[in-house]
């Protein structure tokens, strides 16, 4: 139906929709936080010991990477409003680079765990006991789901960057950039919860 006479555009509505969507994403993870809470309560000692297996340094580096990337995408939303295309692109590329770094870090972290026989359904893990099975099951499931969100965010920001580059996204219609930024902050926020739950509380 391209004969639609009116082109309806309402940036406030788009942002409201995005906020509601972010709400659903938080609830998606909330289900996992409940499961984590229940099993931590039931297996306090095993969760404590299993958490010590994870490297706080790697987790902290990734936290810093994500926090900086949130700052860079926030700066991109400001840069686009100042009509500075080069700077907008620069900040978007920086965000993409940091997202990539996060994933690379994650890859090596997971790979290390796999090589020690720690992965969902492994026999080594089951020998360690129920608490460890659940801890690492949750660890892989939750960080895996989070990594999936990083990838989605990566694709979104790439689309934004392409559109900024060919001038179809400018200061006149920055809402897609704003919404991608909101989404990226969500991804960051979830990590802010995952980091202490898996790495810091020991």
């Amino acid at each position, binding site marked *: 139906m391209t004969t639609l006479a009116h082109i309806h555009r309402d940036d406030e509505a788009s942002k409201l929709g995005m906020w509601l969507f972010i709400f659903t994403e938080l609830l998606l993870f909330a289900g996992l936080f409940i499961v984590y809470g229940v099993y931590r309560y039931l297996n306090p000692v095993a969760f404590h010991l299993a958490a010590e297996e994870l490297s706080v340094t790697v987790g902290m580096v990734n936290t810093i990477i994500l926090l900086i990337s949130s700052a860079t995408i926030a700066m991109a939303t400001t840069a686009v409003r100042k009509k500075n295309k080069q700077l907008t692109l620069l900040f978007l590329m920086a965000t993409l680079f940091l997202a990539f770094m996060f994933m690379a870090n994650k890859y090596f972290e997971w790979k290390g765990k796999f090589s020690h026989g720690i992965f969902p359904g492994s026999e080594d893990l089951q020998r360690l006991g129920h608490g460890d099975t*659940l801890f690492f099951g949750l660890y892989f499931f939750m960080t895996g789901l989070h990594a999936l969100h990083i990838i989605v965010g990566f694709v979104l920001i790439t689309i934004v960057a392409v559109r900024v580059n060919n001038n179809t996204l400018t200061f006149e219609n920055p809402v897609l950039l704003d919404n991608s930024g909101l989404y990226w902050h969500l991804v960051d926020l979830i990590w802010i919860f995952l980091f202490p739950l898996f790495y810091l509380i020991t």
Partner: protein
Amino acid sequence: MSDRTNLSFREEKGNRKGIFAWILSTDHKRIGILYLYSIVAFFLTGVVLGILMKLELLAPGKTVMDPATYNAIFTLHGVIMIFLVVVPGLPAVFGNFLLPIMIGAKDVAFPKINLLSWWIYVFGAIIALSSLFMAGGPPDTGWTFYAPYAFKTNTNMLPAVLGAFILGFSSILTGINFIVTIHRMRAPGMTWFKMPLFPWTLYGTGWIQILATPIVGITLLMIVGERVLNIGFFDPALGGDPILYQHLFWIYSHPAVYIMILPAMGAISEIIPTFANKSIFGYKAIVLSTLAIAFVGYFVWGHHMFTSGMSGTALYTFSLLTFIVAIPSAIKVFNWVSTLHKASIQLEAPFFWAASFLFVFMIGGLSGIALGALTTNIHLHDTAFVVAHFHFIVFGGVGFAFMGAIHYWFPKIWGRMYNARLATTGWMIFFIGFCTLYLPMFFLGFSGMPRRYYDYVEEFHGPNVVSTIGSWVLALGLIIILYNLIRSATKGEVATKNPWGGRTLEWTVDSPPSLENFDEIPVVTRSPYDYRKNIDE
């Protein structure tokens, strides 16, 4: 006869041809109709499965199928009816078609996402039903997918669970779309308390969809993780807790009941004042009870698990909250009945559906109170009584409201009238069939017949025969209704703008509406159910 001035939305030529002008259309009315056709197709599939189940229960022992097939059929019946028919049901069909018109807008806030959610719905449905055609057969767990059986069974669980997960996205996107539409696009002058009640219930539904669906989404993903990666979330052998699965499942699936029933209540709140020719009694009470149901409905999920093992405190709390959530529903019933008091009622098919809705909804609601009480629940849990209860609510409540809605808005959607006498006949046969089918189940459950059993002892034979005969009567009624509606959609008398004398905005536009609904966005000055004669037209 016709007072149409513009081309209607169905005649309007886009630049796409044939079926693509529909399945790629972002017009909310076309999307509503796409949903209608898909939902009716799945509904009929579910009905056939239900009739097969009743046929099996005609006599003790094996009648037409073996136990494994029976298990698969009741699972499919549940999955299709819940996830593909009743949850999207009224919001996706009538919400899409009517919400923008009723609040004086030209479309929903995000037309493209609206189309996307229909595509996601179709995609999810295909995935869910693909289990039928794979080796291993459809799942046999019941629609609740309870752990640990859900990851032990050799049937095709994954497609069903993934399909339900994908359908959740469709539901969430529709919910977001409606909430934003209602916040941003109401016509000038339409304050919150001048908004008709059907949009109000869609608003409440939207919030439940947003708040509850993600929880079942993640739970279903965990079942997938369990089956594919053997993680052990809910497997006692690996340290997991199957009861936790039940909690997570019902945290969504109980509010989902209100996703189903709220829009149904909204449709009834539209039909009753129109056919009573009278302003609705207690408009604000109905609005507030809608929001109260949406809110309290969130905290009652434990009443599905009274026999699963919970602390005494949890049992009492959930039981008390279950009683409390019945209050706003009762408020609505009193309001509807009070609206009818001393009214000059137009006896037309939509009104018959609404009136019978009140009847079956009362029975369903009161039997729900019996189930919400801890002591009776122990006796009735997992019996045919429960099946009768939720069919009275979900099929009786939502189904009757859907039928009422389609008879009420039929002239608006198709621009034609149906045969009133045939519609009334169909309703009467359907209603008699419905009661014959489900009332015996209360007695059966009360005397101890378990649900989901394909066999039973001789004592239960009589009521089961009555119930099975009821299913045939109901099917006959359904055939008459469908024949009447399908025939009338093309051959019926041309309808006027406002055949019933409704006061809400959809009756001010053409039947069927033009592509843009309104030539000029209306300015709303009066309340939606203002039936005073002196301000007429």
